[in-house]
């Protein structure tokens, strides 16, 4: 690693090139990481998997509403039974 070696008696051109190169790489890395960490997502967008789950839940809710509207658990008097007198629930 020439970058960390002190060679005062020799020209330092190579060290400077290495320094700039690594600085640029490091800078890019910091910028990309920071952007992904602090980026504010525009309102209304949802990750694809969440959107899919949301659609599924909405569809189920719609079906349940539809079924309830139809009177899904309507009670109709039944035939063929007897009351067991004296036997409370």
């Amino acid at each position, binding site marked *: 690693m020439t970058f960390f070696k002190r060679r005062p008696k020799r020209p330092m051109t190579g060290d400077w090139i290495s320094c700039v190169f690594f600085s640029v790489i490091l800078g890019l890395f910091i910028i990309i990481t920071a952007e992904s960490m602090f980026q504010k997502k525009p309102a209304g967008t949802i990750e694809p998997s969440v959107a899919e789950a949301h659609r599924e839940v909405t569809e189920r809710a719609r079906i349940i509403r539809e*079924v309830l509207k139809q009177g*899904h658990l*309507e009670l109709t*008097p*039944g*035939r063929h039974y*007897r*009351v067991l007198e004296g036997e409370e629930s």
Partner: protein
Amino acid sequence: MTPLLSPKIQCTLCPNLCVMGDYERGKCRVRINQGGELFSLVYGKPCAVHVDPMEKKPLYHFLPGTGILSIATAGCLLSCKYCQNWEISQAWPEETRNLDLPPKDVVDAAIRSGSRSIAYTYTEPTVFYEYMWDTCALAHERGLRNVYVTCGYINPEPLRELAKVMDAANVDLKGFTEAFYLDVSGGHLQPVLDAILLMKELGMHVELTNLIVPTKNDDPKMIREMSQWIAKYAGGDTPLHFSRFYPNYRYRNLPPTPLEILVQAREIAMEEGIRYVYVGNVPGSDYNSTYCPSCRKRLIHRIGYEVLSFEIDPETSACRFCGTKINGVWK
């Protein structure tokens, strides 16, 4: 003094005779006690509605080649481990996606579809008894026939009442030992046998189906005993269908019924005097067709559910070749 809690009730529709406390349901999941009264939760709420060929029920001696509007609600009286419709038969009515179809709409739909009859099928229709009865009565008024595809697990009194509006039945005789019924279906054999005989006595056209499950009810000795009982009590002219099992529900570990076993069962039944024995769930089999028991000629040629030829005089119910009477409803 008014009791604090509602009385228990006992449903007398089927031999399970469920005793229900307040807000409790029977084994069928669709009949409930509320305030000491019994209610049906599935009246007018079928979860399956289709137009099928009559041969799919299977009924081979009742209006062959015609379409039949078929309905079912959730629920069943039994819990067969090989049930082919377990997704709806073993479901609560809240779990199925139901239509809103009162009896009048069922009859209208049947007429619109060109069906000549309505089948109460797929699950066990006894669980939606009130809905079935009212639909049957309306169907008769509009000139349609009714078909009851059942396990035969029903008590005599409701069956007598039902027979007033029901024309035909296919009873699934699942096996011929009490042990089989207890272990595989969660019911008893004798009430089914009683129901078959009562249906015949009440004038319904009856056909029987026996689904043969490998290693469970494929014993030739049991098949012979069952055939002997049918020939002796129900009559040798009762059509019998040996149906092929395909892995399903809790018996996914078993293989489909080998064809040789079905053919052997048919031979046993014919040896015991049953004249019309079919092999079901095997498309293309020669044993799907109806043959005259006297001249042995083919009277109804079937391939799958299709009827290709018909050689019975519908007016006289007789074989067109030799004049032998063939049991069935042909017009």
